[in-house]
């Protein structure tokens, strides 16, 4: 009963956490980017087109269920390449200008998608083939990816690359003075995020049954950023904790009817004021207090 009703929600939390994570990497290098949602959209379109277009009928026939991993790989490659192309010029910008440039990039992508025929215009693509009977089955897509990314993130913080990211975040000039190639590292952090967002998009198209230009709205960009900030931008677990709270809350509050979004807003405001380091920061300080 519980799983039947909340199966979709549980998978949606993992999916959104992964999207939050794709912003977490650039943030780790101190770069505020809102481009992830664009790559998410791109990955979703790749999967949706490969799943529905008659041009790919032979592929679907030949590959069977192996089509899905192929979609992820193509989405990964396309997103990483486009991320590189966008990242190199965009990452010369800093702070608010970088954020604006990435918002503009997503807008451009949206207009392109609305004009093209292959993306189904404003209606989008639908009737995407389903690998699983129930929504909960999609945990087999997103669950392993989340596990891999969590391990990757935890390892990253202990490698030269990860430490360079953090050095840039703390002080870009000092990092450069110490010999860290800052532009290269920033682009690297950005491209990791883009690739991840692309793969999540490719997994999400069948999960949502349909794909359209509304997936990469400005609201969605901001939601992803909120997962990281509310969850805790300094912790590996931040995006997951943030997504769990922000995605589940409106659903758990459903019995409140019209009041649910008001409650949702209040919780967010309280979290922003009292949890500057996010939920992860709160948990860490609780643990420290217990140890003391």
């Amino acid at each position, binding site marked *: 009963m519980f799983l039947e009703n909340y199966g979709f929600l549980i998978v949606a939390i993992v999916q959104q956490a992964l999207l939050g994570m794709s912003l977490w990497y650039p943030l780790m290098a101190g770069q505020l980017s809102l481009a992830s949602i664009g790559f998410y959209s791109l990955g979703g379109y790749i999967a949706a087109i490969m799943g529905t277009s008659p041009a790919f009928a032979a592929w679907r026939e030949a590959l069977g269920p192996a089509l899905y991993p192929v979609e992820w790989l193509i989405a990964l490659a396309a997103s990483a390449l486009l991320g590189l192309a966008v990242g190199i010029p965009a990452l010369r910008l800093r702070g608010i200008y970088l954020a604006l440039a990435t918002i503009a990039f997503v807008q451009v992508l949206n207009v392109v998608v609305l004009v093209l025929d292959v993306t189904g215009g404003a209606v989008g693509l639908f009737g995407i083939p389903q690998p699983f009977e129930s929504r909960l089955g999609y945990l087999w897509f997103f669950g392993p990816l989340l596990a891999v990314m969590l391990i990757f993130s935890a390892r990253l913080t202990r490698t030269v690359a990860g430490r360079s990211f953090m050095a840039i975040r703390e002080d870009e000039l000092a990092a450069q003075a110490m010999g860290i190639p800052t532009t290269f590292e920033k682009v690297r952090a950005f491209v990791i995020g883009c690739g991840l967002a692309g793969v999540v998009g490719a997994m999400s198209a069948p999960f949502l049954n349909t794909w359209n230009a*509304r997936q990469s709205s400005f609201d969605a960009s901001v939601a992803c950023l909120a997962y990281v900030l509310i969850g805790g931008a300094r912790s590996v677990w931040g995006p997951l904790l943030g997504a769990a709270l922000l995605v589940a809350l409106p659903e758990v509050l459903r019995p409140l009817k019209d009041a649910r979004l008001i409650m949702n807003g209040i919780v967010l405001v309280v979290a922003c004021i009292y949890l500057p380091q996010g939920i992860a920061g709160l948990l860490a300080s609780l643990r420290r207090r217990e140890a003391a």
Partner: protein
Amino acid sequence: MRPFIILLAGLFLANTALAEPVGSPIPVGIAVGQTTNVALFGEEQVNGAKVAEKLLNEKGGVGGTPIRLAFQDTGGDEAGAINAFQNLISRDKVVAIIGPTLSQQAFAANPIANQAKVPVVGPSNTAKGIAQIGEYVSRISAPMTLVAPNALKRALKLNPNVKNVAVVYAQDDAFNVSETGIFQEAIKGMGLNIATIQKTSVKDTDFTTQVTAILGAGVDMVVMSCLAADGGNMVKQLRQLGYEGLIVGGNGFNSPNMYPVCGQECTGVIVAQAYSPKADNAENKAFSAAFKDMFKKDPAQFSAQAYTSVKVVVDALNEVEKSSGKKIAEMDTAELRTALNAAIVSSSYDTPLGEIVLDADGEITQKTFYVSQIKVADDGKTGTMELLPE
């Protein structure tokens, strides 16, 4: 270990489909967008459904058993629609779902209901392919295939000398993109020349570029597929910059929200409508009177379509009760959902939209459409849509 096994067994038993009776009152689900920017339509749908609940229950509901509407907000996105559907299916245990508001949401959520074998009636989904999502999906919102050419014919009656036409459409809105396709085909079919095609966005407020291009093309009719706010603004700017020819608006213009946006400049705009509050049939008279009584204004198209959806479900429930000879409230939910779906399709219904027929796929054929002309009152904020004579 043993309590754990008992618990598991208990869960398993609870999970298996024990025959669950429908119960009284009979729960019918409404999943529309009551929040986000879709709420503009969703609120109208909720109002229409509430009138249906009151009016149809007063008429005896289903063989004396009343219906109860269960509302779940879908918000404006696809995930919200899926969540709302899941809640209606497994928690509210509804016999059928009416919703969601947008076609894109329908493509996401309807397959879930179809898999769970719960009938869905789309109150406002007009995109191609909705009724084909599955066996359990039908819709009562017709694409504009018939009304668009009709509106053009009426416009030509007002000015038979029209030769050159400008087409405008909001390219980021699914409904308007499909509607403009129908308009453009009809224009060509009537031997008129499309002098220019201008694309807009439903978020635009400034249309100087498009208006200049239209004025430069020297057209004598502008055919617009936009929503109320953007369309209203564009009509205003067309008139203010000196355009004097005919303006034909699509179904997006069929909303009282047009009047305050463009004021007097809207007067004379011809509107293709899937529903008119002035429609002359008994169902509509009863519905609009009850609606006016409850909300002190004329019903909008979205309200009439929501009412129609509830009526289709209630009529089909009555049909099931009559043909099976069993009380609906005592029937098993899963069994009833299947029987109900079979009764919904391949039937005709008397509704405020006029007579409608659902085919075996659940696709609608609407017999009557309406073409009206906007008349804005002197205050520039209110107005009416006067039906144009045949």
